[in-house]
Every structure is written in C-alpha cells, then in structure tokens.
C-alpha cells in the first residue's frame, strides 16, 4: 500500500482541485488561460510519452503505479473529468448570455405600457387605467 502513496496523493489532490474549480467563480480570462496551459501540458506529455515509451514506465514506478499504461489510464480519467467540468462551466456562462439576449428581444418587442399621469381629474374621481 505504501508504495502507492505518491500516486494516491497526486490523484486525490487533483480531484480536490476539480471540486474547488466547480464552486469557485473564476474570471473568464483566467479560466481560459488555465485551460489552454493545461491543454498544452497534456499535449507535451503525450508527445514525450509516445517518443520515449520507457519514460512512461519509469514515471509510473516513481509514483507507485505498476505499468506505464495504467498511468496513462489514470491520467486519461483525470483529463476527461477536468474537461467535462470545464465544459459544464462554459455552458453555464453561455446560458447566462443567451438568457440576457432573449430577455432583450422579449422586452424590445414588448408593448409599451400606458403612461399614467400623476394628476387626477378635478371632480375628485380617480382615473381608470386602460390597458393597451
């Protein structure tokens, strides 16, 4: 069990980071930059792993995982979940934008309400509001 400690710590920390990322609102620019950097990192790691397959086994043994392919699987799961979360966050932002747009359209084509004057007629009767 002990020789797997490193990989366990790494994976658990990553999932904690995901959990936090879900709840914390981060500004669009920063989130986009982080996403791009991570994609770059994944691309680089992928290139390295293909060019030097033995590297995978070395790294795997370092963190307590038996085979290089197992490590790839774990990394794949992490990347997949991160990607899904990132997409869901972007989707929510898009939803907000769409709502604002739809609301704008609805209110722009809405009938104007009748301007009611604040003065009442002199004979003391309250003026009736008429709907358009």
């Amino acid at each position, binding site marked *: 069990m002990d020789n797997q400690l490193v990989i366990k710590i790494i994976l658990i920390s990553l999932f904690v980071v995901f959990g936090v990322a*879900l709840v914390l609102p981060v500004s669009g620019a920063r989130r986009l930059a982080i996403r791009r950097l991570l994609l770059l990192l994944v691309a680089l790691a992928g290139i390295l792993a293909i060019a030097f397959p033995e590297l995978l086994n070395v790294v795997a043994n370092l963190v307590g995982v038996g085979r290089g392919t197992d490590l790839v699987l774990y990394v794949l799961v992490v990347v997949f979940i991160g990607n899904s979360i990132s997409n869901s966050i972007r989707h929510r932002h898009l939803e907000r934008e769409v*709502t604002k747009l*739809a609301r704008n359209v609805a209110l722009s*084509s809405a009938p104007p309400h009748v301007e009611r004057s604040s003065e*009442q007629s002199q004979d*003391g009767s309250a003026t009736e509001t008429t709907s358009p």
Partner: protein
Amino acid sequence: MEKDFRASPVHLRPSANVASPTAGTTRSISIVIPVTASTWLVVPLYNEAKVVREVIQHARTVFPNIVCVDDGSSDDSVAEALAGGAIVVQHPFNLGQGAALRTGLDYALSDKSAKYFVTFDSDGQHRVEDALAMIDRLATGTVDVVVGSRFLDQRTQPGALKKLVLKTAVMFERLSTGVKLTDAHNGLRAFNRTAATKIRIDQNRMAHASEIVAEIRRNDLRYTEMPVHVVYTDYSKSKGQSIWNSVNIISDLYFK
C-alpha cells in the same frame, strides 16, 4: 366582485392668493390614490391556456396592471392571457420560470410610477386577497419584501410527502442562506422597487426560488412572511413541481 381600493385620501386647498372665480372660498378636493394602481402583477406563463384567462380576469378586478411573461408556450396561452386583459411579453424560446420573473420585473420596473411588484402564478393557485394583503404590508414602508407562507397557519394542507420535502428544503435554506422562512418555495412574493431592482435572478429554472431567498440576505433587504392559502385544484396538482427537481435545484445552486 366589488373593487377593493386601499385609499389614502389627500386633501388639497387652493391658495387664498390665487385669483379665481372662487377666490375667498375654501374648497377641498379629495383624491383617492389606490395602492393597487402603482402595483404590477408579474405572472410567468407556460402552457396554461385552460385557466389563464380566468385567473387574469379575476386578478384584474383588483390589480389593473398585469404583465404575463410567456415562456415559449406551445398552446393558446398568449391569446388567452391577452383576452383576459394582461400585457404579454414573450420570450423567444423557453428559458424557465426564474428567467420569466426577471423579465417581467424588468418590464414592470420600466413603469416609473410603479412602486410594488407581486409575483403571481398563472395556474390559479394563488389568491388575489393574499396578494392584496401583501401589498398593504409593503405600503407601510417597514419591509422591502413580503414572502407568502403556507405554514404560518393551518389553512393549506399539502400532501404528506410534499410537506416533508418542503420542510427539508426550509431547513437546508436556513443553513445555507441564514434567512429564516417557514416556506421555502412559495411563488407568491411582493417586492418594493428597491427589492425588485436589487434582486438578481440568474437561475433560469426552478432554483430561482432559493436564489431569491439568498439575494434577500445578500442585499440586506427587510423581509417578512405572511400567511397565504394556496389552492391545490386537481388541475394544478397534476402539474406540481416534482421531487426530482430537488436534485436539479441543488446542483444548479452549487455548480457555478
């Protein structure tokens, strides 16, 4: 149904210095300014063609200003609401009840003389008398928001399961927002202009009810509860909010 005006009589006396045919005599004019004249009812509408006309007609006997926000209904709801005498604002596609409320409030707020705003259901579950009582309360100026509650008295009897779910929701909301309410998701609410302007409704769908409660806390709005009687007709029971929505509501609120 006789009109029910809450009136504050105002007496005016023309100045004695004004040259007029009646100069020298004192004449006072009583002007009745009903509080309902500066109130807007905001009615989110989605496929309620069967009942909406009657609901609007009944409400208009007391409240002259009603805006129905049609949220992409596929039936005759819009025509029926117009026939009932409401102003109809249409979303280009379905967004959700929360979005409809915010749109309706925005529309009503554009009326500069509007002071009070009531969110009111289109399915006949809410009573006009309860809305009127809430406006009277707002008119005293001591609170910004009045929220209806089914559990302040024994009038309303929801089913046992629904009651359990609602009570759980109340407890959950108290813990997360710190606002003490006895009824978590009551659709009958009244706002004054301050509250209607400040409250954000970003949750388009069912989570808006919890968001409104959280917004009350965030803006430090003064609030109170009043007992309301929700009428569970067979029609409205068949369309009620399902328990499954609780899962969606919670996930909507916590995943930004």
